[in-house]
Each structure stands twice: as structure tokens, then as C-alpha cells.
């Protein structure tokens, strides 16, 4: 009896730890079944095997034109996304720290930030295309335009959210300005990382969408190849683009989480009784 309970507990623990494998198998199983039995037409859904072939051929540059290599397209798309995101993080931290530190400024700018963050960034894209003569900066600044209010708001909220008790302790003990500033920055880091992860996802989405709207001059763009493959019903290439973007987003998010853990500012649900 006790042995059965022990085995059941072990199985439950194993299931909990590796449930992602089950989810992965389930999704791929359904995908494979859907495409194998043509539950969804081939023009809408490629099979996992076909997608894998595109990814593998791209990796080994075989039997594929260079302009269909999803990894080269992905490289340029991620470069656009990361350059826009980098500017967003730097600008958002600076603006967020300033607006969050002064109540009057925070209260005054909150409606503007709230207003700006609901505007779809793609709306500004045509204007920025003209402004930057259809060049690369148009893509970068569209990302900044879309992500900066979110990042600024996240950092400012983090500053405003520091508990009064912590600030009072620093004030009562007359902690030097440098140590106080360090403590405030460390206390704000979870909000900075939250904003960074959120805006990274947004930057990827905006990069791909803007590339779908207007192909960059150099022609390398995951959004453009995804759009073209959809139009020509080349669904394996389209789904390969989806997989590559998703994988990059996942890995980048995991990387940021890892940095959070290393700095000791990652949120945790562990509590004592």
C-alpha cells in the first residue's frame, strides 16, 4: 500500500517536471495527424516533416535558393528587432527612472504614456518610411515608437511601487545617496526585466509585421518571405518562419530570465510558513 503511494507520488512528480514534453508531443501529434489525414487543406497547413525539411535545407544551404533560406532572413529580422529593442530598453530605463522618481512628472506624463501605448505602431510605419527614405531606420524607429511607452511605463511603475517602508528605512538610517540609489535601482530591476521581456516580444512582432507591410531594400526579411510564401501557398516555408520566430522569442526570453536569476531579482513563489 505504502509502496503504491510512493510510486504514485514519484509518477506525479515526474509528470509535473516533464509535462512540457507531453505538451510538445501532443501538439506535434495533432499537427501531424491534421496534415496526414488532410483535416486541414495543404494550402493552409504543412506537415511537421515538410517544415523540418525547409529548416534542415536552410541549415545546410542545400537544394534551396539563398533567398529562401529562412535563417538568413531571420538574421536580418532579429537584427532589426534587437536594435529597436536595445534603443527601447536604454530609453525606457532613462525615461522611466526620471518619470518614476518625481510624482508630479509621473502623474503628468501617465496619460500621455497610456495614450501612446495603445496606438498600433504600424500606423506610424508609413510616416517613418518616408521620413527615413525607405531605409532601415524606419523599421528600427517603428519598434522604438511601439515599445518605448511600454518600457517607460514598466520602469516608472517599478519605481513608484517601491514600498514606503523601504524608503523610510533608507531615510531614517540616513543611508548615503550612492547606496540609496543602488538599492532603488536593484528594487526596480524586476520591473525593468518585466518590461524588457514584454518589449522584446513586441519588437519581434513589430519587426515581422512591418516587413510584411513593406519589404526592406536589401530584401532580407522573415516577414516578407512569410508573406510571399503565404501568397504562393508555399506553406512549409511559412510555417518554418513561424517556428524560427517562436524559437528565437522563447530562447531570448529564457536568456533574460537567466540573467534575472543570476542577479537574484527573479520573482519566486516560494514562501515560508
Amino acid at each position, binding site marked *: 500500500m505504502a509502496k503504491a503511494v510512493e510510486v504514485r507520488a514519484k509518477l506525479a512528480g515526474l509528470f509535473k517536471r516533464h509535462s512540457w514534453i507531453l505538451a510538445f508531443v501532443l501538439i506535434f501529434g495533432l499537427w501531424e495527424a491534421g496534415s496526414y489525414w488532410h483535416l486541414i487543406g495543404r494550402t493552409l497547413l504543412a506537415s511537421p516533416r515538410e517544415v523540418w525539411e525547409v529548416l534542415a535545407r536552410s541549415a545546410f544551404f542545400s537544394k534551396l535558393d539563398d533567398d529562401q533560406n529562412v535563417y538568413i532572413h531571420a538574421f536580418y529580422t532579429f537584427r532589426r528587432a534587437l536594435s529597436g529593442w536595445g534603443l527601447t530598453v536604454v530609453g525606457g530605463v532613462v525615461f522611466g527612472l526620471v518619470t518614476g522618481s518625481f510624482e508630479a512628472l509621473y502623474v503628468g506624463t501617465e496619460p500621455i504614456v497610456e495614450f501612446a501605448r495603445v496606438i498600433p505602431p504600424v500606423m506610424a510605419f508609413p510616416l517613418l518610411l518616408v521620413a527615413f527614405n525607405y531605409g532601415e531606420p524606419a523599421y528600427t524607429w517603428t519598434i522604438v515608437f511601439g515599445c518605448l511607452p511600454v518600457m517607460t511605463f514598466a520602469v516608472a511603475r517599478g519605481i513608484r511601487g517601491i*514600498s514606503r517602508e*523601504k524608503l523610510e*528605512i533608507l531615510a*531614517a538610517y540616513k543611508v548615503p545617496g550612492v547606496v540609496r540609489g543602488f538599492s532603488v535601482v*536593484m528594487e526596480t530591476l524586476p520591473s525593468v526585466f518585466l518590461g524588457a521581456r514584454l518589449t522584446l516580444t513586441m519588437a519581434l512582432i513589430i519587426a515581422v509585421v512591418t516587413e510584411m507591410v513593406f519589404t526592406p531594400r536589401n530584401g532580407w526579411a522573415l516577414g516578407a518571405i512569410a508573406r510571399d510564401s503565404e501568397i504562393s501557398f508555399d506553406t512549409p516555408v511559412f510555417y518554418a518562419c513561424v517556428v524560427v520566430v517562436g524559437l528565437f522569442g522563447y530562447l531570448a526570453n529564457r536568456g533574460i530570465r537567466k540573467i534575472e536569476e543570476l542577479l537574484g*531579482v527573479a520573482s519566486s513563489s516560494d514562501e*515560508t510558513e
Partner: protein
Amino acid sequence: MRSSLIVKDLSASYKDTKEPTDVFRSVSFQVESGKILGVFGPNGSGKTTLLKVLAGLKPAEAGEVVLPMRNGEPGPVATVPQDYRSSFFEWANLEHNLALTSTSLPSHPQQAVRSARALRTELGLDLDLSLRPRRCSGGMLQQAAMIRAFQDAPSLILADEPFSALDFNVAATVRSSFRRMVKKRGITAIVVLHQIVDLSEVCDEVLVVPGRPFSTELLPGLEHAVIMQNEFLSTDQREDRVGFLALAGRVLGGAR
């Protein structure tokens, strides 16, 4: 050379509503170094506000606070906040949290950490300082808050319900070591307490606050707060203890 804490005609009010709400008016008292003043009264009577004004965290409307002097200057003030949980930073362990408020941190960080460990021993506590705050219970954090208060040899400690989360045994240890260290180091202490046992074992004098707004003077429309000597520290003076309880009960009863 240490001196007393002198509070003269101190007044404070809340101004977050249209009409300012008085918390206390014309409050005056003096606490000598090495003495502990307990503050006893119902919830919402302004005890915490009084501590915040004394700590310089909330501006006084009128009056004067003369902090105990050290080397011709007002000495360091230490606080044990009522919400001690929120006063610790999650990104640092207890040891580093304590070092943060130490004056020796910028120049001698290791010394700040060693001093925290030494104080833990002196207070008779068995607390793992390598833990992160989220791993600690309320009682453990309250012990850490007590260690923090004694860092850097303060001349004034303002503690708001510092024993509220401690278990029976730890509370007894902390009460006795708190009193011993205040006496030994000549610190002035003001402690908000709700338990008679805490007041009787820790304090030399008790400011009994009947309600809000209060004053130490007899003024119309204000509750009269009185300072009573704690004469019942020794168990053979039971009559005084009963007398105190009767008086405190009468004062608090009158506020309702």
C-alpha cells in the same frame, strides 16, 4: 557624553483630506539616555505617527524635538517599523540587508557584515542571516529588524511593536536583551507596545494614549495622555501592577 530626548509642544496632523485631521497636539515629554518609554494605546490613536515624527519621517506641525546628543551632535536614530516585512529588500539576504543601513558599508563592507553577526550573538538570537527575506517567517524578519536597530550605536531607537511576531521563548530573550543593551549602551528608546507583559518587562515609563487626538496637557477636546512610571518590574510589587492595569484600563475605557 549623552543627553536626553526632549519633546516640546509637538503637534502633528494628517493633511491628505480637505480638513486637516489632528493626531496629537502639545505633546511634551523627556526620556533620559538609558531609559525606555513605552507607548500604549488603542489602534489608530497616533502612536506610529508620533514615532514617525520623532524619526523625522513625517514633518511636525509645531513644536520641537531635541535628539539625544553624541559628540556635540544629534546622534543616529534607528527604527524598527511596524511593517517590518516590507522594510527588507528581496534581492539581498538578511546579512546584506543589515549591511545596507550600516554607516560602515561604503568604506568597510566586511565590517558591516561582521557587526551584524556580532549583534545577533549579543542579542542571543539564533537567526540564519544568509537567508533571503522571502525565505523568512515574520518572526525571523522581526529579529533581523531588531539587529538592524542596534547597528552603528544609535542614540535613539524608535520601535513599533517590535515583539509582535516573536514566539514565546524568542520574545522573552529579545525583551531581556533589548532592555540590557539599551541600559548598557546608554541608548534612549521609545517602544510602541500592546501587551502588558511587554510593557512591564521592557519599559521604565509608559505613555498611555487614550485616543486621538491626544495631548500630554489637559486641553479641551483632546484626550489626555499620561506618563506613568513602571513600578512593577519586580514581582513583589504586585499592587503597583494591579494599579497600573486599573489605570490603563480606565484611560483606555474612557476613550471608547
